[in-house]
């Protein structure tokens, strides 16, 4: 079959052809970018924190009328109180291990600073490497479920304590593999010395964990999302956080036992049922809620758009079939087979969709570039666009099939009837 008669027929419907190609172009542009956004969000949500997240939960509490952490005596009293809490939690029957920590990954509450292999580098100096600190104790590795890949874990002798707003030397630290690689690109980090927050006091890296995400999920933290530092120091203030690993499958039981256990140690504290004891699953859900929401929203938009476009093609082709009822009859009477009529409409659609996708690719890339300049967006991989093009052509063919088949069923006798 030659293309000539199809093109000639299309010329008679210029406006309709332009509109449907335009619609296919718009659909392709929007769907490509929306699917790209969905892909990015799904990738973000699925990145592992490095923790064993099952059976893990976080307790956040605040003492009332507690001593001030600004004077040394107050710090000592607060530390005693914190140790009592830790002991009470460790004694719970469903609890496997407990570690104090100022934060956990995805919590969006962080203490960040910068580390450098040279002493005395100021915080503002861009040459340091940004990192997020986890202030914790010797139980941190089993509690968070971190994998030590080199060196050793903290021991009880490494653990110190300090007021939450104090600055204290950090003689030993454990860093994430990503941070170790950043600081020491060629070679082993264990045993090396680094300096944190512009200090001239050395910190020795005694261990490296495979992976540990920082608490921040905001865009400001993207640059150092995997640069974590563990410090064996309990922070003392009127406010503490405890990370608890329950025995396998006993998380909910352990969580419900926590308030009573802590109130028994000291009732003068704020510990509200909803916010104070949170499973890690909940922390993860709330951290990524916006991303999941955006992905769902984009998914719904794509679905509507594809349905509308498919329905539009069906509607418009049906009209054309109706309009050319008699011509089809004539062609059939002159010897065209059913399959020829079917192919005619399929090729016609392919041509229109082809023009649409060419325009659509340009629009998709243009929209992506516009989003890149105005919002945090990366360049769309061509694979997305290529898949989008194929999908668009396939949808066009699927949509045209029903009216095209109806056209192919027009009996030749129609040619003999007057309009």
């Amino acid at each position, binding site marked *: 079959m030659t293309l000539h008669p199809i093109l000639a027929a299309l010329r008679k419907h210029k*406006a*309709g052809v332009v*509109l*449907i190609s335009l*619609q296919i172009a*718009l*659909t392709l*542009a*929007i769907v490509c*970018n*929306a699917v790209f956004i969905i892909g990015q969000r799904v990738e973000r949500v699925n990145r592992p924190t490095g923790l064993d997240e099952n059976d893990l939960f976080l307790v956040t509490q*605040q003492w*009332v*009328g507690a001593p*001030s952490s*600004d004077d040394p005596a107050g710090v000592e009293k607060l530390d005693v109180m914190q140790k009592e809490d830790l002991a009470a939690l460790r004694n719970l029957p469903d609890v496997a291990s407990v570690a104090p920590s100022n934060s956990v990954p995805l919590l969006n509450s962080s203490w960040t600073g910068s580390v450098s292999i040279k002493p005395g580098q*100021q*915080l*503002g*100096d861009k040459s340091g490497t940004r990192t997020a600190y986890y202030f914790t104790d010797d139980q941190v590795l089993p509690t968070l479920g971190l994998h030590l890949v080199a060196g050793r874990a903290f021991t009880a002798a490494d653990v110190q304590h300090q*007021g939450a*707003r*104090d*600055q204290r030397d950090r003689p030993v630290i454990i860093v994430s593999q990503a941070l170790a690689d950043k600081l020491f690109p060629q070679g082993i980090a264990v045993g090396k010395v680094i300096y944190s*927050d*512009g*200090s001239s006091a050395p910190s020795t890296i005694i261990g490296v964990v495979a992976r540990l995400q920082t608490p921040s999920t905001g865009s400001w933290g993207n640059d150092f999302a995997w640069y974590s530092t563990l410090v064996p120091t309990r922070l003392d203030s009127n406010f503490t956080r405890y990370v608890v690993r329950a025995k396998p499958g006993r998380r909910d039981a352990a969580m419900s036992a926590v308030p009573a256990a802590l109130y028994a140690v000291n*009732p*003068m*504290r*704020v510990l*509200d049922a909803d916010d104070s004891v949170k499973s890690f699953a909940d922390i993860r859900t*709330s951290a990524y*809620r*916006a991303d*999941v*929401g*955006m992905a*769902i*929203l*984009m998914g*719904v*938009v794509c679905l*509507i*758009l594809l*349905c*509308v*476009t498919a*329905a*539009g093609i069906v*509607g*418009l082709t*049906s*009209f*054309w079939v109706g*309009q050319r009822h008699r011509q089809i009859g004539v062609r059939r009477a002159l010897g065209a087979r059913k399959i020829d009529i079917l192919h005619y409409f399929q090729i016609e659609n392919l041509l229109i969709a082809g023009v649409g996708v060419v325009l659509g690719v340009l629009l998709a890339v243009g929209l992506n570039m516009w*989003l890149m300049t*105005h*919002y*945090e967006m990366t360049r769309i991989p061509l694979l997305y666009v290529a898949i989008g093009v194929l999908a668009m052509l396939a949808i066009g063919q699927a949509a045209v099939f029903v009216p095209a088949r109806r056209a192919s069923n027009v009996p030749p006798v129609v040619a003999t009837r007057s309009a």
Partner: protein
Amino acid sequence: MFAYYLELALRSLKRSPGLTALMVLTIAFGVAASMTTYSVFRAVSGDPIPWKSSQLFVPQIDMWGPNGRGSDGEPPDAMDYNDAITLMRDHRAKLQSAMYQISPSVVPADASKHPINVSGHAVYSEFFPMLDVPFLYGSGWSADDDTQRAAVVVISSKLNQKLFGGSNSVGKTVNVEGKDYRVVGVLNDWNPQPRFFDVVNSGGFSTGVEDVFLPFQRAIAVGLPNDGNTNCNAVPAESGFVGLQHSNCVWIAYMAELDDAAAVTAYKQYIDGYAHDMQQSGRFGWAPNNRLRDLPAWLDNQHVVPSDTKVSLLVALGLLLACLVNTAGLLLAKFLRRSSEIGVRRALGAPRLAIYAQFLTEAGIIGLAGGALGLLLTGVGVASVGWVLPKDIAALARVNFSLLMLTLLVSVIATTLAGLYPTFRASRVQPAWQLKSN
């Protein structure tokens, strides 16, 4: 005449119910998606204090110098204690307040109840008149209370409900962080979104309510620590909350009311003069690099409207556009198929205008039906944003009368626009040619 067009349009729509349904559905989905995302956008981009936002200003002082600036050369977005206190002492604006976020515990008088945690701000007395904060009972405290570091507190109606059963609690005592405070005022419902007076610490939107307001100097005196962000470009030399006050770490929000252009100019000169003095005295090793933005500009600068919201709106508008192109294509096919009918009408003396009126009426009816269905879908959409968006933002999106009217209006106008070209084509039909070919 309109009634006649209406009848013609309805008859035409009934003739092809499938196509009509398709067009109505297309319009409805397009409009509903746009309106749902728009309702979210409207909620987060609205002016939280429209009658006054152009008189409220946020000063930024560059106390960190070139090393602490972002890539865009912006000074820090909050203030250190030293500068905030100096600006308060100099008192150059009509009204002003330094403020910092606090999260103290409150111990209920009923000993059987556990203490609760509340959030709030330490502010100066001028905070309340400056932001037109509504009071249910009592009022804010006086400037004297500021200087006396009086143990007074303003509480929210929610906390008042919790502690005093909603009665007038002015003069009663509340235990905040282990110390007694006298209630001087109870706020009427006041929960501005975004939390414009302290965007830096609230991040803009918040599901909670501000429960307590204490005098700034009182909170400092009792060592009530700040609960928000603290940013440092050098480790504080001294430890503790007092060390923070002596450092150049930034953690204090600041707002000033300046009523006219002259006052704004004078205030800008004042803060630049201050930075210049600091340069002279050697504290700053750089020329003044201050900012003085009014509230809308400040909210924009702080990117309070999440970019996801903007991208969603944009994508939804793209969807609406695609739906309209689709409708235009279908209308075109439909109208041109009726060429012979148009030909007869034209031959019988109908002017082009009458053809226009007839077909635009038909398009308008589709728009109206699409809008009506769109209303329903928008309602469903807005109700379900709570499932997909973060709570602090989803809670703000609401269906109200203006949104409903806008939905209908957008739907009818957009569909009529989509019908313009098909109608134009229909009106160009040559009557003689149509009659002949029949």
